């Protein structure tokens, strides 16, 4: 046994030390694998970014109330009376100013995108003071809060960066009126950073919404209060609503985009990976064939075929590992934190997000690279081990 292991070590060392002699083809395989991993991690980081934005939007103990049958705020509608009834439901946390329930209006406004100059459906949210208490992460980072009752707006950090004309001091046109931008806020990377906020009482007449809202966000006492809150609202004959935890709601909002990108990304990665396998096979077959005599000599000296197979496979795995590492690093450098905007189909409005290259993706990328290396090394290794010694020694 010990003999076997020492054989493995010495043959492997031999083959890895001779790598520099095969610089060209080894580098080609290595860069090929790096390319595959970079593309795979890069594409999947888009989906991760969208998911992260949605997940950081959700407060742990928060719930959202929509009209029953509505899948997003955009489609929902609740009267002013409904909003009042909802705020009285059991389970809602209270502070000095009363129940922490925030009735909100959600519409869109056309603003040009910085990148292309074409219009995007930027979300415009009408809020009351409770909107900031429901969203614990809300923080003004520039300028000031808008005055209640005035035609003033504050904008999310993401919206300011992705859409034109949203910096403090500029103003947005709503019909005949100009609403100045007076402040910028952040919300822990959540969805509201893509939005423009204004006093709900100002937005209602501007969009002819009377005294109506689209959703009520509520902070609950504890996570367990949810069932009590939900049951009381859904059994109330005056209401026709649907109650969800914020986490569930945001998950459902990102499903379409997430599945689309992940699906396409996976198909692309698999096809590219296949290409890289052929490249790796080519490299390793070449490596084996250029060492035919060498390997045959080793075997003539008494080295067994097991160690030979392992040495070839480990060379290939080493190449794949380094390639995967390079690819993952490239993807991380190029994409992590890169900000972009896309359309959230569920609410028909723009969301801004940052590409998210996380540890899980990097690990996935490197594992995928090693798989390519394994497949690419195994067949050439078997071939090397099976060559008849006498014949191989005679070869050029």
């Amino acid at each position, binding site marked *: 046994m010990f003999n076997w292991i020492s054989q493995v070590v010495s043959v492997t060392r031999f083959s890895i030390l001779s790598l520099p002699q095969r610089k*060209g*083809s080894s*580098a*080609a*395989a290595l*860069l*090929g694998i790096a*390319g*595959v991993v*970079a*593309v795979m991690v*890069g*594409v999947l980081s888009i989906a991760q970014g969208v998911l992260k934005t949605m997940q950081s939007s959700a407060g742990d103990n928060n719930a959202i109330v929509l009209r029953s*049958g*509505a*899948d997003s705020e*955009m*489609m929902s509608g609740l009267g002013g009376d409904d909003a009042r009834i909802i705020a009285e439901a059991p389970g809602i946390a209270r502070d000095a100013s009363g129940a922490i329930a925030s009735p909100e209006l959600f*519409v*869109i*406004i*056309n603003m040009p*995108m910085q*990148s*292309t100059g*074409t*219009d*995007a*459906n930027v979300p415009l949210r009408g809020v009351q003071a409770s909107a900031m208490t429901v969203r614990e992460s809300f923080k003004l980072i520039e300028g000031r809060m808008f005055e209640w009752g005035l035609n003033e707006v504050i904008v999310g950090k993401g919206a300011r960066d992705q859409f034109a004309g949203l910096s403090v001091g500029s103003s947005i*046109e*709503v*019909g*005949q009126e100009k609403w100045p931008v007076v402040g910028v806020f952040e919300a822990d990377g959540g969805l509201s950073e893509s939005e423009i906020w204004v006093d709900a009482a100002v937005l209602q007449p501007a*969009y002819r919404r009377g005294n109506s809202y689209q959703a009520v966000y509520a902070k609950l006492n504890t996570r367990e209060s949810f069932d009590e809150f939900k049951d009381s609202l859904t059994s109330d004959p005056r209401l026709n609503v649907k109650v969800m935890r914020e986490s569930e709601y945001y998950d459902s909002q990102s499903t*379409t985009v997430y599945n*689309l990108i992940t*699906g*396409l990304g996976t*198909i*692309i990665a698999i*096809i*590219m990976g*296949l*290409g*890289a396998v*052929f*490249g790796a*096979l*080519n*490299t390793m*077959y*070449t490596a084996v064939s250029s060492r035919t005599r060498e390997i045959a000599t080793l075997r003539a000296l008494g080295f067994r075929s097991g160690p030979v197979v392992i040495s070839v496979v480990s060379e290939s795995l080493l190449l794949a590992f380094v390639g995967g590492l390079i690819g993952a690093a490239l993807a991380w450098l190029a994409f992590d934190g890169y900000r*972009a*905007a*896309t*359309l959230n*189909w*569920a609410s*028909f409005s*723009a969301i801004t997000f940052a590409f998210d290259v996380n540890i899980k993706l990097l690990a996935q990328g490197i594992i995928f690279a090693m798989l390519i290396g394994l497949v690419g090394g195994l067949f050439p290794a078997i071939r090397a081990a099976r060559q008849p010694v006498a014949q191989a020694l005679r070869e050029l």
Partner: protein
Amino acid sequence: MKYFYLIFSSLKRKKLRTGLTILSIMVAFILFGYLTAIRQAFDAGVEVAGADRLIVRHKVSLIQLLPQSYEAKIERIDGVDNATHSTWFGGVYQEPKNFFAQMPIVPEELFDMYPEFVISDEHKAAWLETRSGVLVGRGLMDRFDWKLGDRIPINATIWGKKDGGRTWEFDLVAVYDGAEKGTDTSQFFIRYDFFDETRANGQGLVGWYTVRISDPERAAEVAAAIDAEFANSAQETKAEPEGAFIQGFANQIGNIGFIIMSIMSAVFFTILLVAGNTMAYTVRERTNELAVLKAIGFTDRGVLGLVLGESLALTLVGGVLGLGLAWLLVSMGDPTDGSFPVFYLPTYDLFLGLVLIVAMAFIAGIVPALQAQKLQIADALRR
């Protein structure tokens, strides 16, 4: 002829390597074809958009409605041929993931405005006779296995009914086909008169107008005239060519073209490395043979051509196989199960693929070919 034979026999020399190289090139072109189809799906409509059509919508946002009375006003503007309105119905068929566009529209206006929708006279008549009837695209009908005469329930998310219900039932009475490959056949058209009298609120309000102009050259001018007509009114408009409107919409999803270009570059760069490396190897291994060829009278240029020819043969076989497979894969249907309105490989891109094949063969082969050309017979034979 002798060159063909020589190229063929040198490719046969290491069958395994030749095979693997061809396979990796094939993979690159499968991806090329597939990604092209995806880009095409996202850009769907931009290319087939009518150059003579404008879209007029509410200036503030697409969700705000315009009065139906604008139609007559728009039609009076100089340079306007016809105007018709559509509205976003936004209903759900069974479950949200079965997304497709539903729009109330005036049937006669649709027949006139969209010549790319091919509808038989019988179907036209049937739709005109049935108030709750709908006209659906062939693609959509196939997606859900609907048949003529089916009753299709749609749950309204925006438009409640006067009776308080939210489930609308429509009768499938007419089908349209696309006149071109790129025509969107995933739409579902409802009769506007039925919609307007059944909806609980919003009577007389419509989503946007499609306007046909008599001279596409004057599109910008007519668009400006339309916007000027409604300037300073309660509902100001934004008019733009249909292509620009669709492009703007695609831009919102993201810069798909750029992402796909980046992926393609990475793929081609990778494959170029693999193919170039193989070519370099074959030349290095055959230094002796090439020198012999030169010694028996092949010119330097002849040897250069030989190596380039080998490179071309490799990429051509791999590339054409790849494009063919991509075509097969794409015609098997779209990967999102119906979310793309169109999914096909445009002929233009097939030609682009062929050009890329030749370019790739040249780039991968040129360095080894030049090496082969420069070989000194005496030196090379001694190696």
